[in-house]
């Protein structure tokens, strides 16, 4: 059976096995409204619109787990991108390391460091075959990079506004 691709936030992930995608849907990591595709389909469809996947959506109290086979975890040296591990769960989720480092460099050190620490864990979990865990760390890395970016942006905007205000006040003979 052909592997699935799924899309979140304008980015596509996969290929990922049917079992792994079902697991992600059951956990809520992939939402019923997210788009999926596999070979043979003419276009992307929402998870809801694909009966064999919609069965895994967690709202249903009765989710038939017909043949649950635990995924083999490959004993591999952790630390590099290995295509073989991709067979276990799909292509690795983004680790947002670039954004994390950029946020760290651009004056918002603590949040950037948090993001880097999460980014560090994506790859290891992925190589251990823990795809859902890797996705979770990936989302945390993304979240903290955004928090750092937004906090940095707000603080800097306020700072610039204060500078402009002070400069204008000084031009007016130092009186406010």
């Amino acid at each position, binding site marked *: 059976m052909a592997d699935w691709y799924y899309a979140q*936030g304008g*980015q*596509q*992930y996969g290929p990922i096995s049917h079992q792994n995608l079902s697991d992600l849907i059951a956990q809520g990591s992939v939402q019923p409204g997210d788009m999926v595709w596999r070979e043979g389909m003419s276009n992307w469809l929402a998870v809801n619109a694909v009966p064999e996947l919609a069965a895994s959506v967690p709202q249903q109290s009765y989710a038939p787990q017909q043949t649950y086979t635990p995924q083999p975890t490959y004993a591999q040296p952790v630390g590099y991108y290995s295509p073989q591990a991709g067979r276990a769960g799909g*292509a690795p989720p983004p680790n947002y*390391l670039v954004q994390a480092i950029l946020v760290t460099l*651009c004056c918002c*050190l603590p949040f950037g460091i948090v993001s880097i*620490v999460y980014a560090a864990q994506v790859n290891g979990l992925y190589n251990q075959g823990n795809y859902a865990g890797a996705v979770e760390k990936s989302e945390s890395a993304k979240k903290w990079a955004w928090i750092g970016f937004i906090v940095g942006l707000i603080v*800097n905007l306020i700072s610039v506004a204060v500078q402009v205000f002070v400069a204008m006040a000084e031009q007016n003979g130092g009186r406010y």
Partner: protein
Amino acid sequence: MSGPGPIDASSHPPPLPGRRWAIGKAIGVSVALLAGAIWLILRPSALETLLPRCTLYQYTGLYCPGCGGTRAVDALLHGHFLAALRFNPVTTLALPLIGLMWARWIYKLATNRPGSTWSIWLSKRAVYGIAIFLTLYMIARNLPFAWLDFIRPPS
């Protein structure tokens, strides 16, 4: 490209529903980067003070890992590599890497490659190393020893 086919390099999924947004984002970021670069290159030197100052430095006098970064980019864009190193060695050395990531981003988007675009795959130890290095870098920049002046931006 859009139709199903045998399993080979050409059997990519059809364009994503969110693809238009992703392309818009890439164009937005690229235009902003280009505009910034053009501003740094063409700006008259009389407008030196119009470069944004580091907020942390402004209020605490502390150097963050990015302090001197804008001036380093400015120097690099004008071809002054050594001056750029002087302003912020880490930013200067990281810039080509960031340029590469940007190129890969555009390439993957243009060819509709699956997979994550904004990742560098390093070992856990290496990534922790980066976090520790950046923290130590910031600390070192603020230690009151004259021999550490080479990692501090000149004021």
